[in-house]
């Protein structure tokens, strides 16, 4: 029996040893990296930017300004202004997470550490691009207290715009700093500009001009600031900041993915937009088909590899035109309008065109040029142009979206949907429609 006892002890001992061999501490996730270089973060941010500007928000805004229409399924109630805090499935949160503010700030920290002014400037322009869009759509947003934990407060929209102008000024000076110790650039990782600091600087000026435009309804002096900024902005369509797509799986134009691959038939081109553009030289840039079967251009605008615009020379030049009009410099306005027209085969404007008809012409071109861009909605909110007839009688054209439910339920500083304002601070309702000779505004 003694041997039995011994062997029992031996077996138990062996098994305890087996146990001790096991390593219970998990330090490595075999599926995910724990470090990231600036270029890896840059690509993440640039891709996220494509999604911010090219996915659901652009489709919603196109429907609100009646460039697009919801035809079936969930897009009918959305088209008819049935908006809830879940309408966008979390688009507002996206500005802070995955490729949003958290990663662009991480990128900035890394390149600041390296002493790379130019790269820092680029990353600061990226930050302004995403945050200004969020402020355009949601108004007051978390910005100054963002990413610091706790329950951050909403900053007033106009303050955010002001902060972003300062950030862009810093970005411009960083981009101008050619003597920094470690200047580099994202290079080929930057699919749009190849890391060209001058192109990023032009983008920064264009964005400054756009933000000033979005401030101008409550602060008309901003038109002049916009005018000045636009002159240093993107003036050549080859320098447009657009999202580039290879067309491979997960790398295709988001509108194409939506209208062809994922949700065919759910949205289409609005008759209103078709009527406006039917005989316009830019028709083929955006649409195809005739009066019974018009649709998104499958070769130019919504092909798998069509770039999606984020900031363009078209917009910048038309900002120049409008800001000249705003200071009553009609000849200058016409010059810029013709500069835009020359890019797209649009005949020159008659020399005598002044006043409201001239503004109407400028705003019409901009409304067309910004097809499916969220800025078209911001412009509508500012100008009530075009003078849209609301698709649901008795309701106004939506002027903002609700904060995401996730954000509202985790941050007590975000008000309940019922307590959120209908309009943002930069956008009091217009009494009349700009460019329409004092006609009453129908949709605000």
């Amino acid at each position: 029996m003694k041997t039995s006892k011994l062997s029992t002890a031996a077996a138990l001992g062996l098994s305890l040893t087996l146990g001790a061999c096991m390593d219970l501490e998990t330090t490595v996730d075999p599926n995910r990296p724990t470090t990231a270089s600036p270029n890896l973060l840059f690509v993440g941010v640039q891709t996220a930017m494509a999604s911010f500007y090219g996915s659901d928000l652009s489709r919603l805004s196109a429907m609100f300004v009646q460039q697009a229409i919801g035809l079936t399924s969930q897009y009918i109630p959305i088209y008819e202004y049935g908006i809830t805090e879940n309408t966008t499935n979390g688009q507002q949160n996206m500005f802070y997470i995955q490729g949003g503010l958290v990663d662009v700030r991480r990128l900035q920290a890394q390149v600041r550490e390296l002493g790379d002014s130019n790269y820092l400037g680029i990353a600061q322009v990226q930050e302004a691009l995403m945050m200004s869009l969020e402020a355009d759509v949601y108004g007051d947003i978390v910005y100054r207290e963002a990413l610091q934990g706790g329950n951050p407060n909403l900053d007033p929209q106009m303050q955010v715009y002001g902060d972003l102008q300062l950030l862009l000024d810093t970005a411009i000076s960083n981009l101008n700093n050619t003597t920094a110790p470690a200047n580099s650039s994202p290079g080929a990782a930057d699919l749009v500009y190849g890391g060209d600091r001058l192109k990023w600087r032009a983008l920064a000026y264009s964005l400054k001009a756009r933000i000033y435009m979005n401030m101008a309804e409550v602060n008309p002096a901003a038109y002049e600031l916009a005018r000045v900024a636009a002159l240093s902005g993107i003036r050549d369509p080859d320098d447009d900041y657009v999202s580039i797509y290879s067309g491979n799986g997960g790398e295709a134009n988001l509108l194409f993915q939506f209208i062809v691959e994922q949700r065919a038939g759910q949205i289409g081109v609005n008759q209103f937009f078709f009527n406006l553009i039917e005989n316009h030289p830019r028709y083929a840039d955006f649409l195809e088909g005739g009066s019974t079967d018009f649709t998104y251009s499958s070769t130019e605008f919504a092909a798998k590899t069509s770039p999606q615009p984020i900031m363009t020379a078209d917009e910048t030049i038309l900002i120049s035109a409008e800001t000249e009009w705003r200071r009553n410099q009609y000849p200058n306005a016409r010059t810029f309008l013709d500069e835009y027209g020359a890019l797209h085969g649009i005949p020159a404007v008659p020399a005598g065109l002044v006043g409201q008809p001239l503004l109407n012409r400028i705003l019409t071109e901009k409304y067309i040029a910004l097809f499916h861009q969220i800025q078209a909605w911001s412009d509508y909110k500012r100008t009530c142009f075009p003078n849209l007839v609301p698709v649901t009688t008795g309701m106004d054209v939506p002027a903002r979206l609700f904060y995401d439910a996730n954000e509202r339920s985790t941050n007590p500083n975000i008000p309940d949907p019922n307590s959120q304002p209908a309009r943002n601070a930069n956008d009091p309702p217009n009494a009349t429609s700009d460019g329409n000779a004092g006609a009453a505004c129908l949709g605000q």
Partner: protein
Amino acid sequence: MIRVRSWLTGVGAILVMLASISGVGLSQSEDVTIRGRVTAESGAPLGGASVVLEGMGLGAQAGEDGRFTIVVPASRATGQTVTIMARLIGYSSKSSTITLTKGSSITQDFSLSSNPLRLGEVVVTGAGTETTREKLANVINTVDSSLIKRAIEPQNVVAALSGKAPNVDVRTQSGEPGASSSIKIRGNPSLSGTNQPLFVVDGQPIDNQTISTNQSPSAYPGNAGVVSQNRAADINPNDIESIEILKGAAAAAIYGARAANGVILITTKKGKTGPTQINFTMTAGWDRVIKTYPLQTKYAMGQDGISYVCSVVNCSSGNAAWGAAIAPGDPSYNHGKEIFKTGNTLDNYLSIGGANDRTAFFLAGGWTRQDGIMQGPNNKYTRTSIRAKVNHQIHPLLNLGANINYIDTRGRYVQKGSNTSGLLLGALRTPPSFNNRQYLDTISGLHRSYRFQRPGLGSNTLSRLYDNPFFVLNNSGNKSELGRAISNVTADWNPLQWLDVRYSLGSDYYADWRQEALPQSSSNYPTGYVIRTDLNNLQIDHNLIAVGRHQFNDNISGELTLGQNLNTRRFRRNTLDGRNLIAPQPFALQNTVSIIPSEFRSNRTIESYFFQGDVEFYNQLFLSFGLRNDGFSTFGSSKPRHNFPKASLAWNFTENMASVNESSFINFGKLRLAYGETGKEPENAYGTIDAFTLEAQLGSGWGDFLNIAQSGQGGVTSSLVKGNSNLRPERSKELEGGFDIAFWQQRADLGFTIYNKRSTDVILTAPISASATGALYQLANAAEVSNKGVELTLNLRPITTDKVEWNVGFNFGQNKNVVKSLAGAEFITYTTEGFNGAIGSATVGHAVGSLRGYDFARCGRGLIIGGVDIDAGCGAGKEGALYIDASGAPVVDPSERVIADPNPKYTLGINTSVRINSRITFSTLLDMRRGLSIWNGTRGALLRFGTDEATLIRERTGVTMAEYYKDVYPSFAGPGVNIPYFNSPIDWQNWFLGQGGGFGDVTQQFVEKANFVKWRELSVTYNVPTKYFQRLGAFSNVDLRLSGRNLHTWTKYKGLDPETNLGGAEWLTQGVDFFGNPQTRSFVFSISLTR
């Protein structure tokens, strides 16, 4: 025809084989022959009773007439006295002593008294421990092989458990071959994973995950694609001897941090003492759809009463059935019916088993083939399994065993669910005027559907908007092939009289080859794709226990168990997502333009120690206590080990009562009280780590997305979920008490249990403020969930005579599941489980898995919508009424709220069986669930498309909203209550196209009560008298069985089936009905031959 002939040939071969074996086994004159008959006290023969000569390894099974014969070889009969024992589940065993004199012939009959609570039977309590039932202080429900056999559900052992035990909620996704079944015991204690129990087969934990082939986040796994199996379905139900359901924490605590959802212990058959027994069972079944969706067949495709005509190639403008009435004489089609056929199932099972004093063996092979209920060749499921279980005593003190099970399953599946290439979505939305059977265009030969009626040449990569269901049925691209080995070796060593050491080392390994492909012109992805996934899972389990026993004196004895458990689980998933087919065929990766690979690995290790002490006082008081200490690699490094204690007490209070005996009114009584703690490890193996991700898909919730890497430039982003290095297991503390009594001269037994289970530290993928943290979620031990309930089982044997035996059993369970706290959040949503507007959630104050969505404005909610004070418009005293505005219509309430609780409040199973003349047995089972709600999204969508039969209401005019919604809302108020809203077919159409249909905002209107009673099983078994098969000689027993499953469903639910769930067992959330495939009714014939 060929198929029928081939299996008949197979049967013939088996018969010949069995018959030829019959010549073996001649007895010799010096042998001792023991003959006898085992009967119940009523005199009814007890077939299947086993009779053994203790210590000799000899025995026999009684035939259906109760007779048995044991032959003791002359060499082993030395005139010794041995104990002969007869036992049968449900009866008290009896023994007697006989003397074995060479050449003698002994007659030994047994009359067994029924054993209502199965006292004295051994129950496996887990991790190598076992006890006898009268000592148990917690509920363990046992389902034995006869009940599993009766369930005639050869595909899925989980499905076979429905209605068998209280508070065991089993749901089968659909009647499709290979569909999953989910099981939940005593509600949802956790917020993550699917809350299904741990499955353990013969001591080896096995995998029961349900995993979609397409795991891309944008595909919302479970929503679309094809059905996936719950992997426990690989176990052949024919192999199973019994299943123990460990429900409460005290019962399951021995499994520590893996047991919070309970444990299902499966024990497979082993060779029984006695001559080798061969059994062949063949089961053939026919399956039909229980119900097809009620559709209108009167109105054609179109809008505003004008029928749509497709005049040009590639036309695609119409989508709904709001056209004119179909002219008399023009064809009209019922698209809900034409896609189905009668399916069939064939199951063959052969087992050979036996045992002597040193060796027991059991060999079995099973083959099941199911040809599903959908038209076409692409819904099939086959499972082949073999099992060998052997045990040999190599030394008087050492027993070695091995148990090897190999399984091969293969299937072909049909696209389902929320999927424009899914079967029912396209089928049911098709207006009756369109002929779906003509699914290829006569000119171009390409796929045509009602929304794309005239595909032109070259349109092979254009979307059909919705697929033609016959095109879907002919897609052969969805397949799976799995090989799995579950095996273990055991050693049982008795080094000392009082010490028993048991060791087992086992593994469960599978490799699952999956393919999901859509051909070109599929609406879901018109350029086609091929997704290939390999799932590879390995679990190794080492379990060592030592049990010591000591008898302190005549009245007190004790047992101490010490154990160690080491376990590793390695899971790998490799997916290659090939997009854009080059040529239409084949469905192979090299035929795609771009391939996105993704790989997921997870490794978990466990190192645990446990002990359990059992003390017995005066044969009536049983105290048990134990502790398990768990170290899991998934716990945070700040505190890697955690303890799970348990204690229980059972008191057989009738033990010493003189007035209690077998013939008194009360025959037995036991009170019990148990407390235990169990845990749940973090669902995510790497939740403790903060890292970047390479795999984010950036886009919207509508399927458009971008990978981070673009044009060959790699990128990373932050993870959506922040890591948490303090992660601990979830902990469930459960107190349960109850009693078991047997009464009415043992004709009845009653068990009652009440429990209170509080789960704390529940891991929450807690939403965190994105703007504050840059992430959406963080895993946190932050939530609290409560489950309270009662369980009642009552078994009656009103008639027990030698001619007729009648049993009735009831099992009733009630569970109330409430989310107590979510770390300050009001709710979390399961974003991949359901839809915006009917999404699974955990909401404080509601059950886990409650659906959230939107309602119309109701009175008494203090709503102000668009500046209108709803309550003021309602008037006083109208709480809960639907508000109708001045236009006669209700108003959308923009606040999201809980709209449905899909968890049943009560479950009731009623089973009864009648045995007549010991030959014919009728048995039946009713399965009832009440208090659950389902969101009928299918109905919502079909109202919108004008194909639901209910849209015939379009013919009525002058109808108010109050009248239309009278079945949905309790009462109505507001200025427009009496205004007729529907005055023309176009009014109806516009309402259904807008807020009255499934694509509007208001999901609450499609929530239905889904109480149901299902007539699960009815079977008639006939034990054929020996005289009819004497000429075949070989058989000791022939059983014929005729049975039906899901014969009838009593429910008011308007959809296909109240058990349906879009995500099947893959989701925690149940009760989402969105174009899932239907359930089936089956008729089965089975013949079982035993020698």
